[in-house]
């Protein structure tokens, strides 16, 4: 087991659980608790990837989700992970890992030959060429696409399982580092509930070296005491392996848990990843800061890493990825890495510090350990092939140059506070010269920032001021802070310093090899070139050179580029501005965002009480909104057309029954019911008698039809209105809106009873016989129960409502019973109807029957631009009262026959051929592609009772075109002919339904 870079007995990995995994086909080793990155390094793998554009050899730069280089494709069991950073996933037995973007192999990548032409590559290359010949762009684009993109997605389903969870808390703290602990301490004392979110697998992951990170034992012990208090408190909840994805308005945050670990459990009820939705009173950002890389020629070689990452690799994983170690820095903080290594007996070769002096304490420690420090020097070039082996440094003062051997270079160009959450929620930043970074400008809307995220990099200062910031916040909220236990021993702060470093040697370097953004392969050359072209504003520069647009979102690189641009344009960093970060902070699987809401959970399914009977009787269902309605009932010896014909004929000749429960039903109750109905419908209800039914259209205030239905007067001040199946909710909301926001004076109550009643609609010449058998106590004769009327009765104390209306054009009784009894009455209906050749029918037959009678279906014969005048219902518009839509319809345009499409019937010349859906209508003499479109076909069917095809359509000036022939053109541009008729084809006097 070749763990050449692993130290004995160091780190938090579980040495009792060794793991084998595969990298590009080679078997490698690690332990449980290793990330893919630490495992690779422990095996001595330094070359982990090829850069996206230039295919340069790259290695690991960091240890966490800000990693710019090492993007992998990972497969474990049946789970596929694409575009995973090696630092962002823990290893699992038999994990198979491949790097992206090289061919045929990582070590030997033929695409690297591209670099021969690097002379000609410039930013915006693709915009400046590929324009000739025009017709070849499609072909060019296909080729270009093949070279872009990171991982390759397999087309099989995602086997990961996701869950969404909600939680509320008083304070959401992002991070569990020292400042977070310190902030939580007084908060818990005041009774706050705290949720702390930690992306690592350990609490306080930057304090694994707690035994020697403090300068004195008193501080160390005080901190340990506070930490234990916070972690063990009953009001503290901690989520590990959880990243904050976004911070949104009104303190709504989303988190993603366990995206970095492979679900070990065989428990099928445990999800792989959880998306948390958190609402909190306050959000505190303690997410630390990101260390910035240094800029020099070949600054992207494998073996160049951020200094605090090296600390983590040794403290957490016991891995030290190099023997000849150099630190290159501009600040005191990065020396912590040196001392971390010393704890394990590892001495680095030298420090190259761009400054002229460092903190006294650090200097003493270095001297005590005989570690060389080279002041006032900068690295101007690095050398190596697949790993760094040498650096070329220059004195900043004298420009004298030396070469030093090195195979692990730790770099630190200062720190960028994590400010993305602040920007996401609309905040802004201000540049702070002393620490060379951008600090969030806090407002009343923004989160609070502490520790590194507030630009406070000193450990003691961080702990002290987080506590004080918490106190201040509680004091502003008028809470009693007088009895809080303070933090002891964190009084004086002996600050470390950072020196702003901008190399004056940059202009002499080969700018094509100085990388300002590793992941997008953006070089100093690209920036200089783009600026010369005029892309001087940060946003334009970014989108043009693509810096910051990678998966890592430029977390380490953005600020270096802002400083560069400031120098080039001779402006301050504030004048340059900052990058507008957007959520998510780090990528989230689409599956996690969707959670369980797919397949049958994508949208709720609504079923009527008769659903099981429909299924047993071979109903083929269609979706009507969220409802499942039988389209027709299949029989083994019939195709669909035959089944539907049979159903239609049954209704016309004997009796058919349809489940009409899905239609909306709203009760309108109250002394002002009539006034209310008069406003919402165009016809007048003032003299409607109890027990009568009226059909009406519902108009919006622009005069357009958006729903229709029958209104029944059940009793004085008690009406029942029907709506379409799909429109029930819309109408209910529409009516409530008018009542509550406009007509406060109307004493009217609305009750939605759609689900409460099952509607058994019995249609056909024999329906009277059947209804009489069902309810012996009702006289269903024409004299007693006339067309468009209503009666109620009861059956065994079960209330029954019967409406005599007709959508089929046949004699019809719609029996409404409470839904709990729906199935009972439906069964009874079919039992009693056995000798009457009773047949169930579905929506397809229903469509044909009503179309034969010219009854519209809102949404099919209307499309939101059709008025009552257009469908021949001008008489419905009352002249003696106001109603919604009236004023709009009193405009010239709506009475202009020449320009309004009017509802007509169409009889095709070829009676056997059904006009295709969507066909359009033109005048007989028209050429297909010239002249006006007269109109279009809205409903087209074959009528079994008439034995011919027919259609309804909307045609300009249609009323005056009756008996005229027109040209029909369908979507394949096939022509046919038809005659315009009145929109009614069967039983024109309506005798059968009366």
């Amino acid at each position: 087991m070749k763990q050449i870079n692993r130290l004995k007995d160091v780190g938090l990995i579980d040495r009792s659980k060794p793991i084998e995994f595969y990298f590009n086909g080679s078997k490698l080793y690690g332990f449980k608790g290793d990330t893919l990155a630490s495992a690779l390094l422990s095996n001595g793998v330094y070359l982990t990837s090829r850069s996206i554009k230039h295919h340069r050899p790259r290695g690991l730069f960091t240890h966490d989700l800000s990693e710019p280089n090492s993007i992998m494709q990972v497969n474990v069991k049946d789970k596929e992970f694409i575009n995973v950073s090696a630092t962002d996933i823990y290893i699992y037995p038999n994990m198979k890992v491949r790097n992206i973007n090289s061919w045929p192999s990582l070590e030997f990548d033929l695409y690297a030959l591209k670099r021969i032409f690097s002379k000609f590559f410039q930013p915006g290359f693709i915009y400046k060429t590929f324009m000739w010949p025009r017709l070849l762009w499609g072909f060019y684009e296909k080729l270009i696409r093949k070279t872009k993109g990171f991982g390759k997605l397999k087309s099989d389903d995602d086997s990961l399982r996701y869950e969404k969870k909600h939680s509320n808390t008083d304070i959401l703290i992002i991070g569990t580092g020292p400042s977070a602990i310190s902030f939580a301490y007084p908060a818990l004392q005041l009774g706050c509930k705290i949720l702390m979110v930690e992306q690592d697998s350990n609490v306080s992951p930057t304090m694994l070296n707690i035994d020697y990170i403090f300068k004195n034992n008193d501080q160390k012990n005080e901190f340990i005491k506070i930490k234990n208090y916070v972690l063990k408190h009953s009001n503290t909840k901690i989520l590990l392996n959880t990243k904050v994805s976004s911070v949104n308005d009104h303190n709504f945050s989303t988190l993603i848990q366990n995206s970095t670990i492979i679900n070990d459990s065989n428990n099928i009820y445990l999800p792989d990843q959880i998306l948390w939705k958190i609402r909190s009173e306050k959000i505190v950002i303690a997410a630390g800061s990101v260390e910035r890389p240094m800029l020099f020629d070949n600054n992207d070689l494998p073996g160049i890493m951020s200094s605090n990452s090296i600390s983590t690799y040794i403290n957490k994983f016991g891995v030290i990825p190099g023997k000849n170690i150099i630190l290159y820095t501009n600040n005191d903080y990065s020396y912590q890495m040196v001392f971390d290594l010393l704890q394990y007996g590892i001495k680095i070769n030298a420090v190259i510090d761009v400054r002229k002096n460092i903190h006294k304490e650090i200097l003493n420690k270095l001297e005590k350990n005989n570690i060389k420090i080279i002041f006032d020097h900068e690295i101007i070039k690095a050398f190596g092939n697949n790993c760094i082996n040498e650096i070329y440094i220059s004195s900043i003062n004298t420009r004298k140059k030396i070469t030093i051997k090195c195979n692990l270079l730790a770099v630190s160009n200062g720190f960028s506070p994590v400010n993305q959450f602040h920007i996401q929620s609309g905040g802004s930043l201000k540049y702070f010269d002393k620490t060379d970074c951008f600090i969030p400008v806090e407002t009343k809307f923004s989160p609070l920032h502490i520790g590194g995220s507030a630009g406070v990099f000193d450990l003691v200062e961080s702990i002290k001021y987080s506590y004080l910031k918490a106190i201040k916040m509680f004091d502003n909220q008028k809470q009693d802070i007088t009895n809080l236990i303070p933090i002891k021993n964190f009084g004086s702060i002996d600050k470390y310093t950072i020196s702003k470093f901008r190399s004056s040697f940059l202009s002499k370097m080969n700018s094509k090899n100085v990388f300002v953004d590793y992941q997008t392969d953006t070089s100093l050359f690209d920036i200089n070139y783009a600026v010369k072209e005029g892309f001087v504003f940060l946003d334009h520069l970014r989108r043009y050179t693509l810096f910051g647009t990678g998966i890592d979102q430029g977390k380490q690189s953005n600020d270096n580029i802002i400083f560069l641009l400031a120098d080039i344009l001779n402006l301050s960093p504030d004048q340059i501005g900052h990058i507008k970060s957007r959520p998510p902070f780090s990528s989230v699987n689409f599956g996690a965002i969707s959670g369980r809401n797919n397949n049958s959970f994508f949208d709720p399914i609504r079923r009527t009480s008769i659903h099981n009977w429909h299924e047993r009787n071979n109903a083929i269902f269609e979706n009507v909104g969220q409802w499942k309605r039988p389209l027709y009932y299949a029989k083994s010896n019939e195709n669909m057309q035959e089944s539907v014909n049979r159903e239609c004929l049954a209704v016309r000749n004997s009796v058919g029954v349809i489940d009409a429960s899905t239609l909306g039903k709203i009760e309108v109750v109250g002394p002002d019911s009539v006034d209310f109905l008069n406003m919402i419908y165009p016809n007048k209800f003032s003299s409607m008698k109890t027990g009568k039914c009226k059909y009406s259209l519902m108009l919006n205030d622009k005069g357009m039809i958006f729903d229709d239905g029958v209104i029944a007067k059940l009793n004085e001040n008690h009406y029942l209105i029907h709506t379409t199946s799909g429109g029930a909710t819309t109408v209910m909301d529409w009516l409530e809106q008018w009542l509550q926001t406009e007509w406060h004076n109307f004493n009217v109550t609305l009750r939605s009873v759609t689900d409460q009643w099952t509607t058994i609609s019995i249609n056909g010449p024999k329906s009277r016989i059947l209804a009489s058998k069902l309810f012996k106590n009702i006289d269903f004769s024409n004299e007693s129960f006339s067309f468009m009327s209503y009666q109620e009765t009861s059956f065994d104390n079960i209330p029954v409502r019967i409406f005599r209306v007709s959508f089929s054009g046949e004699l019809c009784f719609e029996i409404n019973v409470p839904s709990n009894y729906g199935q009972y009455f439906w069964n009874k209906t079919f039992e009693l109807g056995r000798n009457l050749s009773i047949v169930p029918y579905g929506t397809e037959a229903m469509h044909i029957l009503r179309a034969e009678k010219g009854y519209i279906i809102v949404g099919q014969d209307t499309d939101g631009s059709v008025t009552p005048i257009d469908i021949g219902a001008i008489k419905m518009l009352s002249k003696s009262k106001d109603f919604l839509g009236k004023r709009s319809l009193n405009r010239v345009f709506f009475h202009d026959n020449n320009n309004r499409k009017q509802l007509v019937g169409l009889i095709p010349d070829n009676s056997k051929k059904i006009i295709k859906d969507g066909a359009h209508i033109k005048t007989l003499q028209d050429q297909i592609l010239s002249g006006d479109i007269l109109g279009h076909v809205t409903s087209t069917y074959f009528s079994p009772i008439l034995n011919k095809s027919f259609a309804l359509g909307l045609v300009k000036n249609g009323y005056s075109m009756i008996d005229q022939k027109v040209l029909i053109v369908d979507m394949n541009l096939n022509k046919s002919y038809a005659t315009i008729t009145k929109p009614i084809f069967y039983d024109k006097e309506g005798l059968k339904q009366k």
Partner: protein
Amino acid sequence: MLLIECIYCGERDETEFDYGGEIRDKRPVDPDNLSDIEWADFIFSRKNINGIHIEQWFHSGGCRQWFNIQRNTYTNEITKVFNLKNQQIIREKN
């Protein structure tokens, strides 16, 4: 996701509500006496304010009551919650 305070149910996620637009003038009692331009103005014109905005919300997933809130359409800060009928201020935040 906005946090909307229903005047009856308290603070709830935005997904429980429907948005009813800016508060508008009352529907004219005598629309027939308005010119086409005046009528179109009533039906279609919007103040579409960038800044402090009074608007209607409907708690469709709860008590099904309409109410008004005052929200800054740029910052999304909600500062007042009103009873729709009498415009009485139920809650005011500073």
